[in-house]
């Protein structure tokens, strides 16, 4: 087990290097670069443009740029943003808590909805409680988050002249105000994620509930509640854990959209802005960070997988 873990940790390095190389190349394949946008208004000559490229270090061959960037990374230097001219690390430090809070809240909400709904609709398969809870969960999954988000931002301003505050309040400054700001996007995000998780729990529960050990547990006189919760749910959650890892990448995409709609100063919105401004250092750092989160989440999932289900053998 510890050998497995050590090997997986070592293998994180090539994965992240792979991601960083692909991002590095892709972002440079985009049409235009930072100079086209920075010199838009001025009457810039080709020489100005070249000078700026030189100053930003994007006139060098791509492998030289990559090695330079990697060297900086090794020293904990993520580079300087082309757009704001401040270190990317400082830009990230301000934005990570916003996205992390949104993500954790959304994950929590989706799990809290998914497990009970999934269990109920499996235990009461093909009855009204099953139909109602399932259509509600899938209905919420089917509603596009960006649409719901736009409606939620727009309609209250018409009906009650209430607009969401444009200034973001950090959690530590004023927890109550912060939560009122983050809760709505987190609920929208969580509802979108809950449907998939709920379905998986339901199908796994259905499968497990028909297995012999469940019948045995019921036959020896255990209450239905104990059979469902202690014997069935535990086994049904194993594949659900895999999906939890996949949820993290959905979460990342979701934060991009919802942070844009709700004007939250998080990493998702920053990524969108950075791509549009061709702010290479920011795009690279953000992608690396997102990738790190996803990779670590998947590693945790794989380790949990073996811990929950001793039948899985690590090789």
């Amino acid at each position, binding site marked *: 087990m510890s050998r497995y873990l050590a*090997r997986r940790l070592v*293998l994180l390095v090539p*994965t992240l290097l*792979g*991601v960083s190389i*692909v*991002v590095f190349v*892709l*972002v440079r*394949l*985009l049409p235009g670069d930072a100079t086209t946008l920075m010199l838009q208004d001025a009457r810039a000559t080709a020489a100005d443009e070249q000078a700026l490229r030189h100053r930003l270090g994007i006139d060098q061959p791509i492998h030289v740029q990559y090695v330079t960037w990697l060297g900086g990374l090794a020293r904990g230097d993520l580079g300087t943003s082309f757009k704001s001219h401040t270190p990317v690390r400082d830009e990230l430090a301000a934005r990570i808590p916003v996205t992390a809070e949104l993500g954790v809240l959304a994950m929590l909400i989706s799990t809290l909805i998914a497990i009970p709904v999934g269990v109920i609709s499996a235990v009461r*398969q*093909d009855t009204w409680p099953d*139909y109602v809870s*399932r*259509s509600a969960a*899938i209905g919420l*999954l*089917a*509603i*596009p988050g*960006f*649409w719901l988000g*736009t*409606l939620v931002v*727009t309609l209250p301003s*018409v009906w009650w002249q209430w607009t969401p505050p444009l200034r973001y309040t950090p959690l530590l400054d004023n927890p109550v105000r912060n939560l009122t700001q983050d809760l709505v996007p987190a609920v929208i995000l969580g509802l979108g994620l809950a*449907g*998939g998780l709920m*379905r998986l729990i*339901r*199908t796994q529960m259905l*499968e497990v509930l*028909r297995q012999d050990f469940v019948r045995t547990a019921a036959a020896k006189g255990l209450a239905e509640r104990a059979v469902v919760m202690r014997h069935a749910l535990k086994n049904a959650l194993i*594949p659900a854990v*895999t*999906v939890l*890892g*996949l949820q993290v*990448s959905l979460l*990342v*995409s979701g934060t*991009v*959209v919802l942070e*844009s709609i709700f004007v939250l100063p998080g990493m998702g919105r920053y*990524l*969108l802005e950075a*791509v549009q401004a061709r702010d290479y250092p920011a*795009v690279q750092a*953000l*992608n690396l960070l*997102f*990738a790190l989160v*996803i*990779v670590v989440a*998947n590693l945790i999932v794989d380790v949990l*997988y073996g811990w929950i289900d001793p039948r*899985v*053998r690590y*090789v």
Partner: protein
Amino acid sequence: MTTTAVRLRASPRRLSVPHRTGALAQLLRTKPLGAIGAAIILVLLIAAIGAPWLAPYPYDVGVAGVRLQGPSLAHPFGTDANGRDLLSRIIWGARVSVTIGFGAVAISTVLAICVGVLCGYFGGWFDLLVQRVVDVWISFPALVLLVSLVAILGPGLFSTTLILGILLAPGTSRVVRSAVLGMRHLPYVESARCAGAGHIRIIRACVLPNVSATIIVLATIQLGAAILAESTLSFLGYGVPPPYPTWGAMLSGTGRAFMLQSPWLSVWPGLAISAAVFGFNMLGDALRDILDPRLGRGS
């Protein structure tokens, strides 16, 4: 042994298929949600295939005098800021959504089966290496891959389909892999191996039939996911470019700008997306219940 037992149990059901109406009535009775989903998808497919005949107006040419009209007899869904009939645009939008949805899921499913079955079945170093590629693939924030590939391939129906297919594949491949991983050491697979069956035969006869239900269900549900993803892309401005009418783009452009004065502009496309995604999800769930013999009632 398990496979034969499953086949035996499944055969009476297969025999009853000739009574088509009976099977349909049974579906309606036991899986009403699945039947609703199937009905929604049927409407969607009819709209997508019959768009040129069903749409009362062209989707790209508006009439100047009827801008931003509410629903009326002439325009049941109203008109947009360019005087285009919204019902016609929704119907044509179904064609875009269905094309991208089916195309993307076909690409993703084929990719995912290849990767998932091979990794789960062979395991070992092969699995470890390929899973690192999947890791890179899966840990890639979708948006950057998407924006970059759209810029490189040029925006269009084909590039959006391809990119969505590539993006959806790793998720399915992980699920297929873990399903295969779980059955690799089951007695019937090992007994097939002892009986001298080759890898290809084991994969075809023992492994694939047991993951096929999972794959069909995932593919159905991914159709919904692909349609949702496509509309999100179009909303962000990276989707299929005009003149193709896409539901997502309808929500982002005029729909958002005129949401206050003409809410139906954003209501219809949003409902269309929700209905399509809901339909595919419900059908997927019902298929799962029906296709997996282990979930059969009273067994």
